[in-house]
Every structure is written in C-alpha cells, then in structure tokens.
C-alpha cells in the first residue's frame, strides 16, 4: 500500500487536495507509482477559472499520458513552475515538492474522499 496521508483529501482521479483558504492539488503516491517516471507536465495558467472535474492539464510519464482534473471549482492562484521545470519531482515527492497547483475555491461543497475512503479505493 502506497502512502496516503491522513491529513489530505482525495479524488477518485488519484489527486490529493490540501484544503484550506486555498486548495493545494497534486497527484497521489499511488498515481505516481502507476505512472512511472514523469517526463512532462502541463498545468493550468495562473488566474484561470476552472470548473470542478474539468480537465486543466496533463501529466505524461515515459509510457502514458494522463489528464489532470480540477478537483473543485475556482481560480488557479498559483502553479508549481518548479515541477514543470523538473517533472521528476512529481514522481519522487508527490505530496511535497511535486505539488501541482493551488485553487481558490468558488463553488460549494465538493465530493472529496478522506484518506480512509481513498485507501479503500486503491486497495
């Protein structure tokens, strides 16, 4: 079982969300392990308005391309340029240096999973 920190929320698309005033979004260690070595990431532009569940970027490993989804509706207030420049950080440290972007949520409640529910999903 890969690392699923208790203090984060999750989506069924294998993204993690640190909730707060702004939501920080990344991919889970499980997703990183399944993808393998990440070679390219495209993130939404800062200031973009995204809808919950909308495609807002892509992440590409040596063998596969996956889409990145906005877990909640809101405005993208920051993107992790360091991860764009060194995408291997997403594989190596998905919950830390490999975070992807931050959203200021504008919508209401979103359907996020807690750590226990996400663990059950990937079990």
């Amino acid at each position, binding site marked *: 079982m890969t690392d699923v920190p208790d203090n984060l929320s999750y989506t069924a698309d294998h993204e993690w969300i640190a909730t707060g005033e702004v939501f920080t979004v990344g991919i889970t260690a499980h997703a990183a392990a399944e993808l*393998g070595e990440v070679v390219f990431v495209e993130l939404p532009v800062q200031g973009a308005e995204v809808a919950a569940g909308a495609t807002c970027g892509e992440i590409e490993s*040596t*063998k596969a391309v996956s889409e990145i989804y906005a877990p909640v509706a809101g405005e993208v207030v920051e993107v992790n340029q360091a991860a764009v420049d060194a995408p291997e950080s997403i594989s190596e440290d998905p919950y830390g240096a490999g975070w992807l972007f931050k959203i200021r949520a504008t919508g209401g409640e979103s359907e996020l999973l807690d750590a226990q529910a996400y663990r059950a999903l990937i079990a």
Partner: protein
Amino acid sequence: MSDEPETYEARAQEPANLEPATVESLRQTPLAEVHRELGARMIGFAGWDMPVWYESATVEHHGVRNQAGLFDLSHMAEIFVDGPDAAAFLSWALLVDATAMPSGRARYTMMCNDSGGIVDDLIVYRLEDHRFLVVANASNGATVMHELQARSEGFVVKLTDETDAWGLIALQGPEAERIVASVAGSGLVDLRYYRVAQLEILGAPGLAARTGYTGEDGFELFVPADLAIELWSQMAAAGASSGLIPAGLACRDTLRLEAGMPLYGNELTSQTTPFDVGSSRLFKVKPSGQFGEAALVKASAAAHDQLIGLRIHGRRPARTGYAVNVEGGQIGTITSGSPSPTLDCLLAIARVSEPLEVGATVQVDIRDTMTVADVVALPFYQRSRI
C-alpha cells in the same frame, strides 16, 4: 481492436485505467515468484502477468547499456519444428531460406499472410538438420502456431508449441559475456552473434543463443521451466558485482527503440508488408516457392511506406498514432515514441509514405500542437564494437 495484439503500449495508453490488471486472468511465467519478491510493478502484457519495471525503467535502461540486465522473456512462444522436411517447410512458410542455414545459426524473419501483411516477426534457430526452434511474440504465439500448422500440409514435419515447458531468460549488456560464462559455461564466450548452442545448463538440456532485442551484446537462455528460478538466481548472484540488475518490459521497449528495432503491434502490423518497414531484404524468390509469394512479389513492386527516425523538439514525447505532416499534409504516423535515456532526447519511429532525407524536418501533431521533428538516421543508437 480484435486485429491488434494487446501490446504494452496499448495498455499503458489508457491513462484512466490506473488499476493493476486482474492477476487471476493472466498467465504466469515460471519466474512470477521472483518478480513478486523483487517488488516488480506487474502489468498484463499479451495475456501474461509481466514485470514492467522493478525500481525504475530509466535506471534499468542505463543498467543494460552500461553493465547488464536480466529479462524474463518466458512469455515468448517457443515452437519446435521437427522432421525431414523441417527446413523446406520453414522456407515455404516464412521469409527465410532455412535450407541454407547451417545448424547452430539463427535468423531474423517474418511470417506474412496471403496479402503480404506481417503476421509476426520471428527468430528461427536451426538446432539440427531436422530440428528448428521458432520464437514468436507472446501476442502472436497461438496465431503463428495455427498458421504454421495450416501451412504444413504436404510436409513431413511435427510442430510442437512448448511455450509452457520453457523458461526464457535474456542477459543483455556489455557484462553479459562474463556473467553467462560463469553460470552456463565458458564455452559461451565463443558463441558468435546470431548463433545458438544446445548445451547442458544446470544439468538439464537447454539452449543458449547470442541474440537479443536491446542493441547490446547478450544471450538468451532457454531452460526447462522448473529450472528458470535457479538460473535467474545464479545469474543474479554471479552478476551482482558487475552491476547486473533485473530489467522489465518498459526498458526493453526503450532499448529496442534506440536500437531502431521494430515492435509487432507498433511498426509491424497485419496491414503492413515487409517492404513498408525496411525489411525487403527478408524476401527472396525461392525456386521452391513461398507462401503468399504472388502478393509479396506484387507488394515489392508497388509503392510502399518506409520507417524513419525522428528527434522530436520540445518536451512532449510523440506517441503511437500521432500524425506526421509536411507542408503538403499528412504523410504518415508515429509508430513508437519515447524519451531516450541514452541519447537524452525525445525519439520516435514513424511510418511514412514519402521518402525523407536525414536532416529534413516534419511536423508531428502532439495532441493538437504541431511540433517540429528532425529526420535522423536509424538506428538511433549503435553500441561500439571494439
């Protein structure tokens, strides 16, 4: 999709499917337990549960180029052809003149359908005058066996699919010779490229071939399935001080891509002829005839595609199926594409309908972004031979 084998590429490109394949439905190689102990990431590949990487595909790639890697290839199909007509039969059924092969030789060849399309690419080993081994891709093993049987009418031959009876381990890389000698006998140092020897390995009758699919020197060792784990363990131990590491299917794919070797399901399909993929040399009109000869002769004279090497600009790899364009429009598609660990750039092979010189540029449509690519020579990588 029924026409296409389930390739690693095909499965890996289903990004939504991050769940491991259902293990119960997949065939297990004799080395399944070893892969589990090593913590390999397993995927379904051509119906088999196979290691795609152990620690890291890139580390394994460099390991094979610089030291040596150990591959489980037990999923590949071993079909033995025995009988007084074995050589004549294979010469009829495949694009090979088996009658001209001395015992102990291996040949790269293809099986074509009656339209000239490629059924599979194969290696044929002549073990004895009247005994050959045909090694087919896992995805095509059953088809090749079925086709061989259908084409054997009138020949005195016995065909046996022994895939389940054999473990096949490839040892590839510059350190391979030293490692194999310490496990399977020092005589193997003298085994030349594309030669095969019947010998005792771990006290049982086995085969050692100096063949591979990585662009490096190396060996492919066939042992009875119940000895596969022992052979793997002994080689792993013998090679540990030389940097030998287990290597999965992902690095096998990037290694073969750099070496410009075609992959069935990517470069080679039932819709392409040997002439479309730069393998026209495999076809020679034989006095004794050839299955599908009329179609092959016609295909050889007709306009055909060719494979070209591309170096992709930017940072996004080109993937199988992406359109390749010149100013006049689309001229072909990407058949394989990946970052190249050895050359540290993005490489691709494309099948195109127009000849393009090395140095020309094309535009590859990478998910709606036109990306410049340079035509470069194939193979991308060739090991230095001292």
